[in-house]
């Protein structure tokens, strides 16, 4: 995988007429006696998107974003400056600004950087999606439109979009490391609105990852996205009011893993725990889930939206066990928080772009499969809710309260799935909810690849996964 690094390094040095020696000097300029660490993050990103509505691809956009961020760290302080003009003058200026966090005037000498290694390429790509002619993507959206309308005459509106990103990064650090990566990312989304007797309902589905364009055409993938979105809209036409109050809930496999992301994942990010502001503060080694729950964050799964060869500080991504058989095992760390907490970085230092300071973030967060057949889980519930698809979620890190909103759900009555119910928000308490898990299915599924996580105004792509799960007694926010 020296390949991606060489490509990244050569790309930046050539494009901006820089020499490796100048990067070494800039890192030195950001350092001083009181600065513990400094790094440079170069980014060159192109994004392209086409979208369809009313049977027409009427929107096509493309953007180029480039820049460099310079960071200096002194104990828990971070100084940061970035510029979208990559010149040696701006690099030096940014280094000066970043150092402002200490009033110490000393400046370090150049720091020699050696090429770091990226252990493996999780997303080897022959032809970048950006090199596929835009007309092919437009043709795909038009096929999607026809497929959705053919699914059911009650599908009245179809919206579809295809977006791709090609990102080249180069990271040079005062640890003496220089490492680069080429990170592709695409997604395809379909939304259908069904209408019947004035009742209008919506259904959405999509997928993607760090993959080639052919991914969407293989294994009926795009056809499945269309069917799922259209089916959801039609199902919701007959949805009744959702129940209100505490009840047993069965979560379907895959995307409902957003539960883990909100209830557990954010609360285990290193920054909140170092500051002791998380509801999980000081709970390592304690039981936070029932003993059938094992949860990991894994940035090393090939092709996935949440995966990374290296994080945005140059640390290779890891598989981190967060909860093992119910016991809290670990936090998600970036360099700064790991150092302050006397732990090791876990490859979770991520940032939205060169304009942002890295912080601990999730990659792909999921629960391992259990032993129960999913049908037995549904059969076990007398009166409850079966939720198979969700919109977004949110968590209050400090109180631990989290929500996530169902977009496709059904009642379970006497062990049988009966009527569809309207979307409703589920609310729970992070350190408590997984103790209520009584059954874990043998059917772990990862989501289809559309997740985006927001924290402190920074968005990064993530993945989630879940086997079918039974939770006893969670509050369902319906109206009946």
């Amino acid at each position: 995988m020296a390949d991606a690094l060489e490509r990244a390094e050569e790309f930046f040095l050539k494009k901006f007429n820089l020499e490796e020696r100048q990067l070494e000097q800039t890192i030195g300029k950001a350092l001083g006696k009181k600065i513990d660490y400094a790094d440079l993050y170069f980014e060159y990103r192109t994004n392209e998107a086409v979208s369809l509505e009313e049977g027409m691809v009427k929107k096509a956009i493309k953007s180029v974003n480039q820049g460099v961020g310079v960071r200096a760290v002194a104990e828990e302080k971070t100084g940061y400056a970035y510029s979208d003009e990559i010149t040696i003058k701006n690099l030096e200026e940014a280094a000066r600004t970043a150092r402002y966090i200490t009033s110490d005037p000393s400046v370090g000498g150049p720091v020699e950087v050696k090429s770091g290694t990226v252990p493996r390429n999780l997303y080897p790509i022959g032809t970048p999606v950006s090199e596929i002619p835009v007309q092919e993507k437009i043709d795909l959206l038009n096929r999607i439109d026809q497929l959705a309308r053919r699914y059911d005459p009650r599908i009245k509106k179809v919206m579809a979009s295809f977006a791709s990103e090609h990102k080249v990064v180069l990271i040079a650090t005062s640890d003496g490391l220089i490492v680069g990566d080429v990170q592709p990312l695409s997604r395809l989304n379909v939304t259908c609105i069904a209408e019947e007797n004035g009742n209008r309902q919506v259904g959405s589905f999509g997928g993607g990852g760090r993959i080639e364009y052919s991914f969407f055409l293989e294994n009926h993938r795009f056809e499945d996205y269309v069917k799922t979105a259209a089916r959801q809209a039609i199902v919701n036409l007959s949805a009744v009011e959702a129940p209100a109050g505490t009840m047993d809930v069965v979560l379907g496999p895959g995307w409902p893993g957003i539960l883990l992301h909100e209830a557990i994942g954010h609360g285990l990010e290193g920054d909140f725990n170092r500051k002791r502001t998380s509801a999980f503060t000081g709970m390592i080694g304690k039981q936070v889930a029932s003993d059938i729950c094992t949860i990991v964050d894994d940035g090393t799964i090939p092709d996935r939206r949440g995966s990374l060869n290296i994080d945005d500080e140059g640390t290779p991504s890891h598989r981190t066990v967060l909860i093992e058989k119910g016991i809290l095992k670990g936090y998600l760390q970036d360099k700064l928080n790991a150092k302050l907490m006397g732990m090791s970085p876990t490859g979770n230092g991520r940032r939205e772009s060169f304009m942002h300071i890295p912080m601990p973030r999730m990659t792909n967060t999921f629960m391992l499969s259990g032993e129960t057949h999913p049908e037995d889980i549904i059969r076990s519930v007398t009166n409850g809710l079966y939720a198979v698809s969700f919109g977004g979620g949110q968590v209050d890190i400090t109180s631990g309260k989290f929500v996530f909103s169902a977009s496709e759900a059904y009642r379970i009555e006497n062990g049988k799935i009966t009527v569809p119910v309207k979307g409703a928000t589920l609310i729970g308490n992070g350190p408590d909810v997984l103790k209520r898990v009584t059954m874990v299915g043998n059917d772990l599924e990862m989501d289809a690849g559309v997740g985006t996580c927001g924290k402190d105004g920074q968005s990064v792509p993530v993945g989630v996964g879940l086997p079918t799960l039974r939770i006893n007694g969670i509050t369902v926010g319906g109206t009946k």
Partner: protein
Amino acid sequence: MISNEELASGLLKKATSKGITAGDVVIVEGNSFDAQVRLKSIDKLSNAHEKKLGLRLFFGRRTAVCSTSDFSSESLDRLVEDTCHLARCTAEDPHAGLPEPAPLDPPDLDLYDESILKWKMEDKIELAVQAESAALEYDPRITNSEGAGLSHSDRRVVYSNTHGVVGSYPVSSVSFSVSPIATSQDSMQRDYWYSSKRKVRDLASAETVGRTAARRALRRVGARKIRTGEFPVVFDPETAAELLGSVSACVSGYSVYKGASFLADRLGKAVAASSVTILDNGTIPSALGSRPFDGEGLATRKTTVIKKGILESYLLDSYSARKLGLHSTGNAVRSIGDVPSVSHTNFYLVPGSHTAEAIIRTVKRGLYVVEMIGFGVNHVTGDYSRGAVGLWIENGELTYPVEEITIAGNLRDILMNIELVGNDLELRSTIASPTLKISRMTVAGN
């Protein structure tokens, strides 16, 4: 070095030579600064200069948008080529096009504070430190902090199109906030408060913001769940503004013509209680949502969206207006790399005559909501279900804090059931509301 205006007109000229029929350019250039302090020392400092350009081109009724932060001449040449290529690939859209030519004489809305650039780093950090200290020192139960932040930005927006319309304006914004944590026994509660303005001198004091944040965190300490039922719900101005945010999204011309809004086809009909009047006004001097012209060079204005409960107008740009057979309301927004869309300017509900206390006094048993979380709002159907934090009202008095509950209803009913409107409107953000009482909603808990 050429000005951004010259850069814009140069690009349009170059594009015209490639055979385009129309086009426009937006250039935004400016600076941003962000400081975070925590437990009285610097946590993060970030500083930057940015410049971005967006180009939209038309070949008749076909269009595309490209943007860049790379201003090398090769990059700009490629930008024009790419935009032309993409535009030729898109479908003929009979409603596509620039707005009708209209003279642009932007008013000075006093949106820029030049003193921001001279503001000393020490003084900025000191303001954040003081605000956090005011919270930490307010009560011994304030034991920790997520920190205090201060950020500001200043930028100059240039717009130019092939009708010969050229305009520019400078804007600035500055804000600071504090997030203290209150502790009791083994549980923690966080809340925050902020002040956000166009000008440094209009900010609230560090003391006021810090103490308010502390009070907000403290009142949540010891929160419990309540039982499920239907109750009157009073939204404080912050959460009422979030309700209004959903209304803003649902009166956007784009949601309306796509049929993706519960307010589609409702123009001229009663959609809210008769005490409800909602305005969008982009011309309020120094306000956070004001702008002299919109994202396609049309003057902003004051639009009555809902008048005494009747839906009077959607918020429109020229495209969504043409789709609906209406006229633009000057609400086009343009994120640099995207086609125009619609957004509110200053969107607010006109205050009534009741104080918040008087409204709470009318509730025998019900919920006073102070925070909502989650995204459980379906704009197509109006279904609304969100997590909430609040204070329980018993016999007209606020009693204990409540959490881990949801509030749910449908926006159609929620708007119709606005029973009382407070007198406490303050334009703290681009969306603002006074206190609102909804006669009934479902509260789910135990």
